[in-house]
């Protein structure tokens, strides 16, 4: 059983390696460049100027996170919560998680499941690929940050501690895993990858907007708890707070429920 799952996982990783490595390199380069932007702003003493340029009402609307962002640590850490980075990571996650739907669509699943391969092994394969690719991309991002800080940053710069970078990466990993589980649950019910990917993307966008609304508009705060992004709190880490274990556990639990539901749904459906 384990050998078969490993064969399937290796096969998927081999097919996806260009995309995974490509996204990893781009995000690592982005992290590296952000450290250089932070160094530039630090050298030109622009952080103070930048924060004074922000109007008071925007500061009060955005909260203390706005000021935290306008710091050396904030700029260096930007890649761990920037919407574009989030979109790239979730795009990769969704494309991996929808592999079962693609195999049903292309009928490759007929060839694999005509052999002594359990349907749950296909789900386990996808979970392994999600974890490995997520770890690789986040590892590359952390490497980009570390390289930027290690090689080209003045020694007096207020570098973010490794614990902050680790917490931000872990938080981002939690969000990616959570959406991996959700997308997988959607994918195992679908017959077409585009449909599964489309619904997963729409769900992520809607959840992001619901969370955003909850952060800027009090009446929507309650509803925003339904969004997984509600449990993604990078700003509190940047402002010196600790990563909430409850939030990370919630994200991991959603992903796990999605993966378990996927295994059950996929095992019961007609292919």
């Amino acid at each position, binding site marked *: 059983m384990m050998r*078969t799952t490993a*064969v*399937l996982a290796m*096969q998927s990783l081999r*097919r996806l390696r260009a995309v995974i490595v490509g996204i990893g390199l781009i995000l690592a380069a982005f992290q590296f460049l952000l450290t250089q932007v932070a160094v530039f702003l630090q050298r030109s003493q622009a952080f103070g100027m930048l924060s004074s340029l922000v109007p008071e009402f925007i500061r009060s609307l955005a909260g203390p996170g706005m000021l935290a962002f306008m710091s050396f640590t904030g700029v260096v850490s930007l890649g761990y919560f920037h919407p574009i980075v989030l979109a790239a990571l979730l795009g990769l996650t969704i494309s991996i998680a929808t592999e079962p739907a693609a*195999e049903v669509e*292309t*009928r*490759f*699943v*007929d*060839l*694999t*499941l*005509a*052999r*002594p*391969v*359990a349907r749950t092994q296909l789900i386990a394969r996808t979970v392994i690929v999600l974890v490995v690719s997520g770890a690789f991309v986040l590892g590359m991002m952390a490497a980009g940050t570390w390289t930027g800080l290690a090689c080209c940053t003045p020694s007096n710069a207020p570098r973010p501690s490794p614990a902050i970078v680790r917490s931000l990466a872990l938080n981002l990993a939690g969000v990616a895993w959570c959406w991996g589980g959700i997308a997988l649950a959607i994918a195992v019910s679908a017959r077409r990858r585009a449909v599964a990917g489309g619904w997963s993307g729409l769900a992520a966008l809607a959840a992001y907007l619901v969370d955003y609304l909850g952060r800027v508009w009090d009446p929507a705060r309650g509803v925003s708890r339904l969004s997984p992004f509600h449990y993604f709190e990078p700003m509190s880490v940047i402002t010196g707070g600790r990563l909430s274990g409850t939030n990370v556990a919630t994200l991991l639990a959603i992903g796990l429920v999605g993966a378990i539901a996927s295994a059950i749904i996929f095992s*019961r459906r*007609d*292919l």
Partner: protein
Amino acid sequence: MSVTAIRLDRLGKRYGRLPALRDVSLDVPVGDVFGFLGLNGAGKTTTIRILLDLVRPTTGRATVFDRDCQTQGLAVRAQLGYLPGEPGFYGDMAGEATLDLLGRLSAHRIDPAWRRTLLDRLEFAASDLRRPVREYSTGMKRKLGIVQAFQADAPLLVLDEPTEGLDPLMQEAFYELLGEVRRRGRTVFMSSHVVPEVERVCDRLALLREGRLALISTIEELRSLAGRRVRASFAADVDPPAAWPPDCEVISVAPRLWDMRVRGSIASFVSLVAARPLADLDVQTPRLEDVLRKYYAAQS
């Protein structure tokens, strides 16, 4: 080991309100090449997908070598090789990588010499194997499908429309391959539209019509069921007998030509005409296609 390779017991499948398969029961003996016939939508592929546990039956059960296809699916699928009607390969994978991957997922170790034999028989060049599957023609994809189904040398081969898309030469190579696996004692369960193909390679056949089993028979039984067409022409005018031998059906009778359909032995008819001034006797073996046409016609 069981003498029955496949047993379908009152198998039924509905897709929503649409019945795809109704109360189908049949046995496929070990070592047989079994043809599974029917028009499009008759339920052939649904039956095959139930055997592979890709589709779950609504009623009844299917077993392979006495193992339930649903509850013991892994053990069942360790015993079979499958060629889908439309094999879905990854276009970006090379043919060789595809065979290697599917071989590693099989229960049996792939014998490289046997795989080489299969590739040679189907005239699959090594250079073609290294190309991505998206560059393959329909026929090449079908050949790749055949090799992946046969390479594990499984005791049971389940083939869905195996010669679809093959040119006549490759069809011939496939029939020879089928003959070889039969000699090796393998059981073959193949669906087909092509009656002459079934007539040529199969020992027995079943015909599905609108999800029901309309016919199950050996090829020989079916031929005898249809009867042979016998034309006797005479050198002079003859009178018909007062009573025709049993199993003789008169098609037309003229003074110098009797046109008959004879089921079973033609010995009694031959002695009847031998007593007359016989000029010529023409015996036509019935084509299975003619026999089956009436079963098909009922559906269409």
